[in-house]
């Protein structure tokens, strides 16, 4: 295991890069979690700007708008997705609710009845969903002979809201922590790409130096075995880095850990790490230039993080951007992190896509390494 041992030894020479990124990352996370905490307690009173597109124009939708208007400022809007996204992106409104034509029948059939665009950058926008859901649940409860008793709904909700303010309901807190984890893990995705490509790339630039490779090839140690030890080293290093950042998140939000489905985040993060390890393998077979490697590390991590919705929520990104994002595992990784109600099928689709990309990167990388050896 000489090769493995020295791979790890060389890794320790790059510890400052890893620790540097980790320090900045945790500092930012601590700041952001302090921020969300103050907002969480305040947010029941917070008045939001809500854009509403009412294509239904029925009594039920009027009731909903009326209810939301009590605590928030309502802005009527046209049903134009691009415009809506722009308004959210520019922070003109905190959320937009689209009430479809068949709103009433959807509510009656307990289907997804409204479409909500909200600004993921703002924790308080989460309450919109709560308020809408609350209204719909109570409306359905008052339904008799196909009619909603909206006057009763109004009365009940008045009290209910007061109760909620008193005990800052567990549902809202839960989704706050969940949202924090979603964002935190999204950023792990960004940092994983940056560090993997940079650190593993720099180490592999040494191992892939032609003269060093030749020395290894003429030795009596089987070349496959040496390579296997190198890849084992990469996996060790990669998993270590991912684990450090995951543990950081768990430590920062330790108290609330029970409120989120941690296993979803963990599985997702490790599968994603594997896919990026494969991507790193591909890059390492394309170049050994340190300059190119640090460039690729920055460009790929920033670029894919942006188009895949790490910095800006996916809902706010244009269709073309998202279509492009689908060609890199980051998109699927972020989607799983941002899912609210996780269906096993959605999750397994996202994981399978990431693994598929991993396999493609691996095979392409192998292709290039074969081509190089032919000379």
């Amino acid at each position, binding site marked *: 295991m000489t090769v493995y041992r*020295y791979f790890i030894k060389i890794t320790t*020479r790059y510890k400052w890069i890893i620790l540097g990124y980790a320090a900045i990352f945790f500092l930012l996370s601590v700041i952001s979690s302090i921020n969300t905490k103050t907002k969480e307690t305040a947010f029941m009173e917070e008045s939001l700007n809500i854009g509403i597109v009412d294509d239904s124009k029925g009594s039920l939708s009027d009731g909903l708008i009326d209810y939301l208007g009590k605590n928030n400022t309502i802005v009527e809007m046209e049903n134009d997705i691009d415009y809506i996204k722009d308004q959210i992106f520019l922070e003109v409104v905190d959320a937009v609710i689209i009430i479809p034509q068949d709103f009433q029948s959807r509510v009656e059939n307990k289907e997804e009845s409204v479409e909500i665009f909200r600004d993921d950058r703002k924790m308080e926008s989460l309450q919109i969903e709560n308020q809408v859901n609350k209204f719909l649940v109570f409306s359905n409860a008052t339904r008799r002979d196909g009619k909603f008793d909206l006057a009763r709904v109004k009365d009940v909700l008045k009290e209910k809201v007061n109760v909620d303010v008193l005990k800052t309901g567990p549902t809202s807190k839960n989704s706050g922590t969940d949202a924090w984890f979603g964002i935190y893990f999204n950023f792990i995705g960004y940092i994983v790409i940056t560090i993997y490509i940079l650190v593993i790339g720099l180490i592999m630039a*040494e191992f892939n130096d032609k*003269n*060093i490779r030749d020395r290894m090839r*003429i030795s009596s140690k089987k070349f496959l075995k040496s390579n296997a030890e190198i890849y084992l080293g990469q996996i060790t290093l990669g998993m270590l880095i991912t684990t450090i950042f995951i543990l950081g998140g768990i430590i920062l939000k330790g108290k609330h850990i029970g409120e989120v489905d941690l296993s979803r985040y963990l599985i997702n993060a490790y599968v994603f790490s594997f896919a990026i390890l494969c991507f790193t393998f591909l890059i390492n077979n394309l170049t050994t230039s340190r300059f190119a490697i640090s460039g690729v590390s920055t460009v790929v991590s920033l670029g894919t993080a942006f188009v895949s919705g790490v910095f800006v929520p996916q809902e706010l990104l244009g269709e073309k951007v998202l279509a492009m994002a689908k060609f890199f595992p980051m998109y699927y990784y972020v989607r799983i992190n941002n899912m609210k109600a996780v269906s096993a099928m959605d999750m397994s689709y996202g994981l399978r896509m990431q693994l598929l990309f991993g396999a493609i990167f691996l095979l392409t990388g192998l292709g290039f390494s074969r081509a190089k050896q032919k000379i």
Partner: protein
Amino acid sequence: MVIKAENIVKKYKELNALDHFNMEVKEGEILGLLGPNGCGKTTAINCILSLLKFDEGDIQIFGQKMTPTSYNIKKQIGLVPQEVAVFENLTVEENIDYFCGLYIEDKNIRREYVKEVIDFVGLTEYKKFYPKKLSGGLKRRLNIACGISHKPKLIFLDEPTVAVDAQSRNFILEGIKRLNKEGSTIIYTTHYLEEAEMLCDRIIIMDRGKSLVTGTVEELKSITSTREKIIAGFENPEEDISDKIKSIPHVLDVGKAHGEYIINFENGTNNLSNLLDFIKDNDLTYTKLYSQLPSLNDVFLELTGKELRE
């Protein structure tokens, strides 16, 4: 025969880097591979070691066909490549231990071997240094140590003294002699005549991918038709007397350089006294007069029509 390479052809597109190259190495000798830059020395080594695929020919080491998976053969071979190939992020000691570890699994044996080779190349004081802190000569010594720490029976050294100061060069050459005395067979490539003459038991002269001649230094010198070379400078006359000099018995040809005549004789006896007679008969006064035996450079010149030295 330790190595037998027959009719190796290695083509890079149009270029024949090796053109029916032949080489035989006997056990226990230091074989020099001598030739100008770009003649194919490194290519020859890389083909022999299966680092490069070649187009034609056959290579046997220790009586077995050499292939990329001949691990039994590889175990007994050490290569000191032309370029320094070490990890910048490992110390001297760690680098040697790494490359030694590619051959020797046992940690205790390895520790001993690493220590021995560090002493051998004189890097004991520097064993905790990173390569970038080493001078050029010390880096070369590290490069050598990484190639020989596992005590191979057959060692390839590819121009290990290029760009090395005189002190390190002598140290390296002495070391190679010691390795040889301790029983290793050595293949040494160089484009320095003096090194080849002083170090090697046998020499292969190479040019343009071809092995031109093989033999001991004496044997190679006997190939040339020149037996003696006399260099003479005269005070008078001003005009060229090359044609007159050619009338002296056994003169092969006469050259002129820096105002001196270089006279090649085909026969090794009485040449100087014949020349002295000629000087007296023509009332010449000489400023310089000395005789030289042919060098490997003359051998190379005669074989290829060009000088080995740049």
